[in-house]
């Protein structure tokens, strides 16, 4: 039995504890926004937050997150009628093309801004180095991060109304 809190909801899971968190999210919890890209921590499509830290769910066994709080793309927005500033800037800058990598990009970027509200280009290069976009929208991602940086108000790793982490 493993206990995890995902986007504010507690789950008791009877799953092989060696199963990577990615597959638990996608198959047991039906949270399909987190994507499979490589399975070996090389592409970043599976990025989620574990206790507020960006984590690659494809190589994180369920046993390693027992009792922890997890945020996924489905929990990035502060409330159902409000977008996270990064989600809004992603729309404003028309970032996604195919969109498949964007959950991971957004979760990684949210983690960056949570810890560094006004990142430099070099900071962005370092933070986003693990996230591949095959549509090549890196410049738009960079621009969207910078435009959201000025209005960052919400840290998905912190408890807020509607997101009872903990």
């Amino acid at each position, binding site marked *: 039995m493993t206990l995890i809190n995902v986007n504010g909801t507690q789950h008791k899971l009877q799953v092989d504890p060696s199963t990577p968190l990615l*597959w638990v999210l996608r198959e047991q919890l*039906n949270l399909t926004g*987190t994507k499979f890209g490589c399975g070996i921590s090389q592409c970043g499509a599976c990025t989620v937050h574990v206790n507020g830290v960006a984590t690659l769910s494809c190589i994180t066994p369920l046993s390693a997150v027992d009792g922890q709080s997890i945020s996924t793309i489905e929990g990035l927005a502060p409330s159902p009628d409000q977008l996270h500033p990064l989600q809004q800037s992603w729309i404003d800058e028309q970032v996604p093309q*195919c*969109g498949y990598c964007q*959950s991971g990009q957004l979760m990684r970027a949210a983690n960056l801004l949570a810890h560094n509200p006004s990142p430099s280009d070099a900071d962005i290069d370092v933070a986003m*180095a693990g996230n591949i976009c095959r549509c090549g929208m*890196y*410049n738009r991602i960079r621009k969207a991060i910078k435009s959201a940086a000025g209005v960052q108000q919400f840290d998905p790793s912190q408890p807020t109304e509607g997101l009872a982490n903990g």
Partner: protein
Amino acid sequence: MGKWSRRGFISAGVIAAGGLLVGVAIRPGNRAAKLSDSGAANGEKLLHIWLKLDRNNIVTAIVPHSEMGQGVGTALAQMLADELDADWNLVKFEEAPATGEFANYSILKAMLPSGGSDLPGFVLPSINGALITTAQALDLQITGGSISVRSTGAFGMRIAGAAVKEMLRNAAAEAWRVPVNEVIARDSQLVHQSSGRVEPFATFIDAAAEMTPPASPQLKQSSEFKIMGHHVERHDIPSKVDGTATFALDVRLPDMLYATVRRAPTFGGGIKTLDDSQARAIKGVVDIIQLPSADVSRTLGSFSTADSIAVVAEGYWPAKQGLDNLKIDWHETENDSVSSDSIFQQFDRDISANVDRESDISEGNLDAAMAGAKQIIEADYRVPYLAHMCMEPLNATAEVKNGRCEIWVGCQNPLGFRQAVADALGFDIDNVTVHNCLMGGGFGRKSLADYAIQAALLAAQVGRPVQLIWTREEEVRQDFYRPAVQSRFRAALDEEGHLTAWENTYVDKHEPVEAPLIPYAVAARDIGHVSSPTHIPFGAWRSVAHSQHCFFTESFIDEVAAAAGQDPYEYRAARLAHRPRQLAVLQKVAEAADWGRPLAAGRGRGISLQQGFGSIVAQVVEVSITGGEVQVDRVVAAVDAGFAVSPDGLTAQIESGIVYGLTAALYGEITIENGAVKESNFNDYQMLRMSAMPKIETHIINSGNPMGGAGEPGTPPIAPALTNAIFNATGQRIRQLPIKNIDLQGLS
């Protein structure tokens, strides 16, 4: 418009829900018919249905193309809505179902001046080649070859929008008893200004449905466009920032199992012995299945289902654990000793032997020009095999029961996939339903149905829905690769450095046929190819043969300019007087890039020019070389796609194409060892990442020429512009990609 009126007709009718449905069909002559009986009259069928208007005044564009990131639905809906004078906020789009009514082969074939020879190359194997010459309507529904806007949009969406506007105006004029020329359409309303009457489009649905649509409605001049050419936000983006966009991998069915698969690593190999005892012992593993032989003859030349072994389990993870614990001995094959080296040796040998060389073009007296040359330069170029590496690994979800198959898949040819799955299962096509999903990248890979066939065969065997998910390693090792190519050049220059002869021989002809041709004026030229087949499966890769040949030809013309002691931009421009459109694009990029401005030591600038998919693109690259490392600082692109329907969409596609080509030029290499692919995943098949990203500036030229494609034309020019820039910085000519293999130490 003349072309359209000879070949098509438009029909309309009221659909069950009470909305107006308007479509365009292909048949000889210029006849109109009601939608309901359009198929009955001569056994012909309505091939396209583009527009729905409902009682709530919502216009829906029905898009017979697949979304793989390119924003096709938005661009096509813009074209339809603009001609209709609809309110953009009341316009939606949806992807057409995979049925024959939405096949787009016929519209392509009818509209392309070449009668179909300009079709994207990947179509050819999928329809078995010969059929293309027949007049039959074929069940194809392809997205590729950068065709959507320039064919479906230009010849379908705009006409449907304009025709419906005329019908609605006529309906309003009749109801209001005013002359039709006093009724205008504006923002999804009909307006009679002098009487002040205003009614939404929807008021006139029933009256319009009784009308015969005009076959040649008046289209707008580009100066009248209100939605085309203007920035609109893509409709699909909000769902791509909150995790709700549904890709094929996100499909969930009751009682669904998961599977993953491995095929013989050496192409053409098969399973000799299998020990699956350890795999079967893994908790959650349900079954281990060697796929049966199936009929794939109509869809895939070299693919065999019987060399696939799949693990079916309660989840992907146990399936993957099962796969990793299979002990498989593969049959030996005649290709077990083939390597990248041996393949390139074969190419070199076959080009030198020059057996059965076929000319693409032969003009002027090549021998005399070579004999009279002041200077002859020669070079050989090579590019390796490349994988596609879509972000979303190949997957498909299938359910087979009661003699029917339903399949959920992201693909570039839903109708072709439907036929492929039907063939493999031995079903009639009517018993197969394809639900096409968003694609996490396509790039040509998802035009081939191997993964869908595997899923269908598994589901048939298991008797429960199965979601087949390939490992990334399988995706790298079982691709239909961009072909490796070698290309040999010889050029003659006269006393003044003028190019007098251009000779080029390369291995293996691929689509499009014009890819190796150069736009530059030269009196004598002979471009041709020899056959040098290998056992490596190949397929369409973003921009198809242009991606290799643009690197070859735009590098070698740079060599010619250098041999002449002339500036590479000036040298090109001087040979484009007969091609004013190309010249304008080249001049635009040079001006935007400030071509003449001197650069610091260790920096370099290169240029290239390319025509393909109806568009012309030129690029200038600036690089810095430091400690043997290449940094791409800046890419300036100029693009003439006729008219940019969606300027931000075009800009994004050019950027995307540049990054795709840049990634390949810097890092891309599939290595063959022992007849199989050596690379496995993103750890050894490197991708361009954020820190290596250059600045990209895209300049759009609206030339007024017929609309061209956007998805592919950005890719080919980047490799030669980059290597020409490295030459400019270092004096080193790069004739083999990828650049990561080139030692640039000591040159910085």
